[in-house]
C-alpha cells in the first residue's frame, strides 16, 4: 500500500483538515490524504505523478483531463479527489503494458491521430469507454462519443480513423484470432 500526499505548496496551512481516501488507479490500490478541495486531476498529476492526464482549460470545456471512473469517462478537473474514495480510476498510463501498446495507442500511431498530443490521452480514454460499450461503432458513434474532447491540431479526421482502427483490432483480438501484430488489410507496422 502506497500513501501519497497532495502538494498544494504554500497554500497548505497546518490546520487544514485532511481526509483519508482509498481508491484503485490503473489496477493498483492506493490510499491518500487529501484536502477536500483538491481536484481529482491534481491528485493524479501531482499526488501520483501520473502526468499523462493533461490539464487544458481547467473550466470543464476541453476534455484533456478525461479519465475513467468506474469505467465512465469524466473530466477529472471537475471532480473532487475526495470523491474518488472507493472508486476505480483508469488513466492513459493504464492502457499499455510494459511491452505492448494498447490497440487504441497503436491506432493513433497507425492513423496519425495526433499532432501535438495534448488532447490525446483524453481522446483515448473517451474512446475506451465507447469501445467497452459498443465494440463495433459507426463513424457517427465515434464522433458523438468524442464530442466533449477538443483537439486544436488535427481537425478530428485522423482521430476518428484511429478509434475505428482500434475497434477493428480489438474485435479481431476478441474473436479469438491468434495474436497477430496487425489485423488483416492493415499496413504492416513500422519497426
Amino acid at each position, binding site marked *: 500500500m502506497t500513501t501519497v500526499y497532495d502538494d498544494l505548496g504554500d497554500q497548505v496551512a497546518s490546520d487544514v483538515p485532511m481526509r483519508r481516501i482509498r481508491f484503485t488507479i490503473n489496477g493498483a490500490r492506493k490510499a491518500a490524504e487529501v484536502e477536500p478541495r*483538491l481536484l481529482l486531476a491534481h491528485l493524479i498529476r501531482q499526488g501520483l505523478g501520473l502526468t499523462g492526464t493533461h490539464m487544458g482549460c481547467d*473550466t*470543464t470545456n476541453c*476534455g484533456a483531463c478525461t479519465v475513467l471512473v468506474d469505467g465512465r469517462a469524466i473530466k477529472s478537473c471537475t471532480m473532487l479527489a475526495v470523491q474518488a*474514495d472507493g472508486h476505480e480510476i483508469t488513466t492513459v498510463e493504464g492502457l499499455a503494458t510494459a511491452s505492448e501498446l494498447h490497440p487504441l495507442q497503436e491506432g493513433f500511431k497507425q492513423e496519425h491521430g495526433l499532432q501535438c498530443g495534448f488532447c490525446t490521452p483524453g481522446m483515448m480514454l473517451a474512446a475506451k469507454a465507447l469501445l467497452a460499450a459498443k465494440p463495433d461503432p459507426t463513424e457517427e458513434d465515434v464522433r458523438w462519443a468524442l464530442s*466533449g474532447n477538443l483537439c486544436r491540431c488535427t481537425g478530428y479526421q485522423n482521430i476518428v480513423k484511429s478509434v475505428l482502427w482500434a475497434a477493428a483490432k480489438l474485435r479481431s483480438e476478441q474473436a479469438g484470432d491468434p495474436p497477430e501484430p496487425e489485423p488483416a488489410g492493415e499496413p504492416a507496422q513500422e519497426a
Partner: protein
Amino acid sequence: MYPSRFRYEAPRSLGEAIGLLREGGDEAKVLAGGQSLVPLMKLRFASPELIVDINNVGGLDYHRADTDGTLRIGALCRHADLERSDLLKSTQPTMAAAAPLIADPLVRNRGTLVGSLCHADPQGDWASVVTALGGSMIAQGPNGSRAIAMADFVTGPFENTLEPDEIAVEAVIPPAQGTRAGGYLKLERRVGDFATVGVAVALETSGGTVRRAGIALTGVGGSTVAATAAAGALAGKALTAETIEQAADLAAQAANPRTDHRGSAAYKRHMVRTFVVRLLSRNGDRAERAA
C-alpha cells in the same frame, strides 16, 4: 484552479444529509454531479463553507415510471442514464430528444437532471423540458417532503425556492392525457456550449386533437420562459398550419432574448419561431397518421 476551503461531508443517508444542511444553513451546498457547482467553486463564484456530497446516499440513482405513467427521476440519475434510457425513448419523446443535447458526453456521465434543475441556469435545457411537461420537484427537509411545481421552483437566474435545509430528491413528470408527442430543439455553436436558443414542446394528443400542450424556451430570458399563451392556443385544437403558425408567433412574443456573442435578439426570437414550427409540424404529421 482551487475552490476556497470548505468542510466536506459525505453522509450515507438523506436524514444525515438534511441534518448537515441544517447545521450549515446558508453556507451549505449539496453536491451531486458537480458539473455546475465545481466549476463555480473553482472560479470562486460560489464559496460554500460546507459541501454535503450526496453521492454516497443509496437509492437515488433511479428513473422509473409508476403504473399510472408518472415518471420519477432521482437526485443521482445522471444525464447519461437518461440518454440511454429505453423507458424515455418509448414514453417521453421530449425528454428523449433533450437528453443527448445536454452539455457533452463527459459532463453527461456525471451531471444530474435534478442538479441541473436546482442550478436554475436560464440556459439550462432540462428546466425547459420539465416546465413544458408540467413537472415538479420533490423537496425533502427535516419536517418531511413537499412537491414544488417547476413553474414555482425557479424564481430567477440561479435561484430556486428550496429552503437551506431541504434537498431536491426527485423530479416528477405527471402522466399524459392521451398520446405523448413533442421534442426538443437546441441551437448551439458547438457541442457542450450553452443553448443560443432551445425550445421544448410537450404535447398530449388523442384523436388528432391536442389535449394538453406545454412549450418552454431556453436561453431567451432571465430564466426559463414558459410560453403559456402559445401552449394554450393549441389546447383542444388539431395541429393545422394555422394553429401551428399561431402558436409559433405567440412563443416568439413570449421570448425575451438579449443580443450577445451568441446572436442578436431578433435572430434568437426568429429561431424560437422556427423551432416551434418545426417541432409542431413534425408532430402534426404524426398525429394525423395516428388519427
